[in-house]
Structure formats: structure tokens, C-alpha cells
């Protein structure tokens, strides 16, 4: 299984005006912070609204989903005693909101799915993309991962003792993935593994025959703050390394108590 990366875009890479990326003012206004930033990142990654039309799959990943809207609606249910509730945060709280809104921007009827599997969400979404490409069901896919932090969730995680070693994080990362290499391809994904047990850095290096330090990214997710799809940030960094000339990068992630995953990326050709 193999796929090619044309472009990777982080939330911080969005340079276009959000009004151009999400032209529908009504849609934009109803979007929560995470939905707006993730949709904008996705559209920037594709190369603008017009390019959404050409996608034949939109696959998103989120560990926590639209937390702020979920919390807002839940708060209203409790405080307003289940009376006269504004439906907007409820509508926008579903996990597939970002994928659905991207499709909606250009009325794209293609395959659209959302993985919500804690720290494996991004890897599971990538696996689905690889399987669809292997089955010749897709050629041009938008793959994305997003999560947001909220003050309540930070307080809860703090009470759970999860921040003793690292900070909370959030972010959105999208990748434009193709079945075949194109002149714009910057890297390829050549393998993905889901392991049952954790293995050491040395074992990963041996398993993949890695000798150079820059070819292995071992448990780097926490550098982007503690959040379930932080591994997508490491993936983006791995793509950047390949662009800078490293021939191959192996990414190993083992988030909190979850089982480990490995993604192997290579240069084109």
C-alpha cells in the first residue's frame, strides 16, 4: 500500500483570507473556532474552494471532536433547564462537521468519513485512504486531523494528572493525497503499522533498518502539546524533512496508554 503527498498544510500555514476559503458568510458565522480553523486549513491545503470539486474522498480524524460546541450545548441544557435551546452548537457538535462542511462548500458528493479513535484517529484515517487507493476507489483525497482545547477540558485533564510532563495542545493538519505521483508530489507514504506492544527506539530502528538519526521520529507528538491527533503534526514535520532532502522518515507514536503506530514516509522516486 502506498500513496503520495502533494501538500501538507497546518493551521499556521493558512495564508489566504478566511473569507476566500469559506466564502459563505452564513456558514462561516455559525462555525465554532475549531470548525472554522480546520475547514480553512483543509481548503487552503486543497488550493482553494474551486479545487474541492476534484476531490474523490474527504477523510477526517479527531480525537475529541467539536468540544467547545458540545460543552456550550451541554451547559445550556443544564443552566436553561432544557428549555428554549439554541440548536446551532448541537448541530455543529457532531464529529463529522468539518468533513461535511468542506463537502458542502463546493457540493462535493464524494466519500466522506470521520475517524474518532483517540490517538489513532489520524492513522486510521490514513489507513482508510491507503485502502481506498489500493482498491482504485480514490485518486485525489483530502485527509485531515483536528482537535481543540477548551478551558473546561484543560481543567479536567489537569485534575486527571495528565499535564505533569507536558502541556495541553490543539491544532489542525491537512494533507492532499494522490494515488499516483504527480509533478507536485513531495513525499510518499510507504507503510503503516499498528503494533500491539510498545517497542524501543532501537527496536524501531532495527525493524526499519534506520541508521541516520534524522530518519527516525520516536514519540515526538508531545512537542506539539498533549492532544489525540498531535501525531498528524509529527507527520507534517516528517513530510517537511523529506522535502529538505532526507530520503526516508519513520514516525513512531505511542500516545499515553494507547498502543503504538508506525508510519513510514519516503522521498519520491
Amino acid at each position, binding site marked *: *500500500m502506498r500513496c503520495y503527498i502533494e501538500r501538507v498544510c497546518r493551521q499556521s500555514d493558512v495564508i489566504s483570507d478566511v473569507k476566500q476559503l469559506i466564502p459563505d458568510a452564513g456558514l462561516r458565522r455559525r462555525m465554532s473556532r475549531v470548525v472554522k480553523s480546520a475547514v480553512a486549513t483543509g481548503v487552503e491545503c486543497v488550493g482553494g474552494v474551486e479545487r474541492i470539486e476534484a476531490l474523490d474522498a*474527504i477523510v477526517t480524524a479527531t*480525537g*475529541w*471532536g467539536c468540544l467547545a460546541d*458540545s460543552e456550550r*450545548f*451541554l*451547559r445550556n*441544557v*443544564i*443552566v436553561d*433547564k*432544557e428549555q428554549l*435551546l*439554541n*440548536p446551532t452548537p*448541537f*448541530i*455543529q*457538535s*457532531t*464529529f*463529522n*462537521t468539518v*468533513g*461535511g*462542511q468542506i*463537502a*458542502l462548500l*463546493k*457540493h*462535493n*458528493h*464524494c*466519500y*466522506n*468519513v*470521520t*475517524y*474518532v*479513535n*483517540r490517538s*489513532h*484517529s489520524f492513522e*486510521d484515517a490514513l*489507513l*482508510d485512504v491507503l*485502502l*481506498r487507493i*489500493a*482498491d482504485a476507489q480514490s485518486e485525489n483525497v483530502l485527509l485531515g486531523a483536528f482537535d481543540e482545547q477548551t478551558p*473546561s477540558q484543560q*481543567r*479536567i485533564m489537569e*485534575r*486527571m494528572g495528565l499535564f505533569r510532563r507536558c502541556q495541553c495542545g490543539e491544532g489542525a493538519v491537512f494533507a492532499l493525497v494522490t494515488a499516483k505521483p504527480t509533478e507536485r508530489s513531495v513525499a510518499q507514504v510507504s507503510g503503516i503499522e*499498528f503494533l*500491539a506492544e510498545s517497542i524501543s527506539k532501537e527496536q524501531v530502528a532495527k525493524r526499519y533498518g534506520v541508521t541516520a538519526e534524522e530518519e527516525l521520529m520516536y514519540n515526538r507528538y508531545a512537542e506539539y502539546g498533549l492532544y*489525540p491527533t498531535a501525531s498528524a503534526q509529527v507527520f507534517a514535520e516528517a513530510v517537511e524533512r523529506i522535502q529538505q532532502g532526507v530520503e526516508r522518515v519513520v514516525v513512531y507514536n505511542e500516545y499515553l496508554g494507547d498502543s503504538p503506530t508506525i508510519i513510514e514516509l519516503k522521498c519520491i522516486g
Partner: protein
Amino acid sequence: MGIVVTGVGLVSALGVGVEQNLASIRQGVSGIKSKPEYLRTTNEVPVGELSMSNEELHQRLSISPGEHLSRTALLAILAVREALEDAQVDLTRRVGLISSTSVAGMDLTEHFFEDFIEDESAGRLRDVRMHDCAATTQAIMRYCGIKGYSTTISTACSSGANAVIMGAKLLKHGIVDCVVVGGSDALSAFTLNGFKSLMILDQSPCRPFDATRAGLNLGEGAGYLVMQREEEAMKWYCRLAGSANRNDAYHQTASSVEGDGAYLAMAEALASAGLSPEDVDYINVHGTGTMNNDAAESAAMLRLFADAVPAFSSTKAFTGHTLAAAGGVEAVLSVMALHRGILYPNMNFREPIEPYGLVPVVEFTQGRDLRCVVSNSFGFGGNCSSLVFTR
């Protein structure tokens, strides 16, 4: 390579177990009660609620109440255990799990939040431990002995069907030898109030595909299938012959007038199975009972089948709309319809919706010669998925 269904498990407002659910439908007894009995809410609206408390569910599963599992997980474990036993799955093989949910541990989070919003150091942390969707999947793995690849999908009310689609891909590519697929959702004040705020909750028992329909009744449940590669299965209920996931791309919560997503999902699912519309013997429709869904789904069926719309019915007047679980619950009902030649009645139907004029099945019949059954699941975000089962 063929994918076959070798086991089924089902829990809904109709009761625990596939046979209990089928018996209730055969007797014409709905699981919809006039108001919630166990869910903490002031809303006195009809719901499809399983008549068992969380304590009773823990007890029935022989899980210590101290484990404090969410209701979504408890319902899921009941259905998955039934499906695994039904298929006599060898858990030492590579058994995978693709589960789906939209509510996840919200039933417990609601308890936590009542205290937390008063005082941020209050609220029992064990009530938020199961908040995320993956927590349900991990609880199923732990209490059902599943150790292979697992993931969780959430595409609102089409989730369960998308779990079936992903499971089939994993089997085809040899990533698993056997896969449990489906979904689970418990009732929660969050979703009940959500649909209330959208003004699509019927104050009476829902009437899918009826001209006087006035909304949905929320339900809860879990439905899971065990699927295997045909050449490795000893016996099976039916084949998963085709499937499709398409997006309506019309509105975040409403369906397009012409039912674009529903039409594309059904048409592509049949094409992927190498079948034509005239091969379909029965459709278990999404049929929520809302003005919008049933009109859009009618339009989609007329586009695809023209004047030869096959026998169809919605089973949601029996179970309520079980959200992410609906794709799983109705996949189980579709598999049993095909296996036993059952056509389920569309309860509470009186007169057809104009201008479509479609009349669903109204009588329970069994022993019919069914060769192809389609199951539809549509959701927020425009997600539309269809599954095609054949003998």
C-alpha cells in the same frame, strides 16, 4: 472475494437479543414508551428506551458496577457478545472491531457537568473517563476479548453503516481474519434536547413515511455484525455484496429536496454489487419520520426505481432513531430479513406522502423469497450510506 455475515447481535428498546427484537416486531409491539423512564430529563416525549437501568446492565453482563461503564458501552457489549457467540468466533485469530457512536459517554458526562459548572473542582472524574468515542470501543474490546485492529467511526446517523464498509475493506486486504462491525448509542439529555431544539421530535409515536408524520422519536441501542471472508466461513446468513458512502452536500442537517446523497448512495452501492435496481427485493429505509428525511428519501427512491419501487419499510417506529447505532441495528434487521424472508411492517403508516404516493410494507410477513436487501443510513453533515446484502 466475497464477504459474508456470520453473526448478529442486537439490543434496542424492543429488548435484548436478535430473537427478542424479531418476536416483538412480529407481534406488532413497539419499543416506544410515552416518556423516558431511566434517562434524567424533564422532557416528557416518547422515546425508544431499553427498560433496564445501568446497574441492571452491569449485572446482566457480570461486570462489576464499580467499573462504571457508560450506557453506550454497556449496550454495545451486550450486542457484541451475542454476535461473537452467534458466529462462534475464535478469539485467538485476528479479530478486529470497527465500532461507531455519536453520543459515546455523554450519559455520564452529563452527570459530571451538573456538578462541574457549579464548581470546577467538583464532579467525579470517573464520569468523564468514558467521554470520548474511543473509550466505548476500548471497553468493548476489553469485555469481549477482541485483540485485533480496532477503530471508531462517527458520521452522525450513518456511522454504523460506515463501520460495516470499513470492516469489509479490512477483510479484503487481509488485515483481519474476522471483524465485528456496527454501532451503539444510548439515550442522553444532550441528544434528546438537541433534536428538540431542532423541532424534529414528534410528541406522539413517530409515523415514518406517513403524510401526517411530525418528527422522530429518539431511541437507543446497539447492533453489530460479525463478518468474514467467504472462503474461511463455515456457514453464513448472507453476503455483503456492495456498499457506498456518498455526501448529500446540501445542508449540515437537512436533506436535499431531490435526495441527491440518498440516490447516489443507493445507486453506487448497487453498482458496486454488480446489481441493478430491479434486483432489489426489500429496502430497510432510513425513514426517521421527519418531514424532510422521508420526503428526500422518497424522491431518491423514485429517481432510482421509477415506477417499480421495491417493498420498503422503516423499523424506527419500533426502535426509535438510534442515531449512530441505526446503521448497525438496521443492518442486523436487514440480514435477518434476507435470511428468513421477512418483510417488516412500517408501523403507524396511514396515508402516503404527496406527491410521492409511496406505500411501505404494513403487514409482517415471513418466508418470502428475498434475494437482495438494501439498508439505508443517512446523517447530519450530509453523510449517506447504503449497504447491499444478498443471499
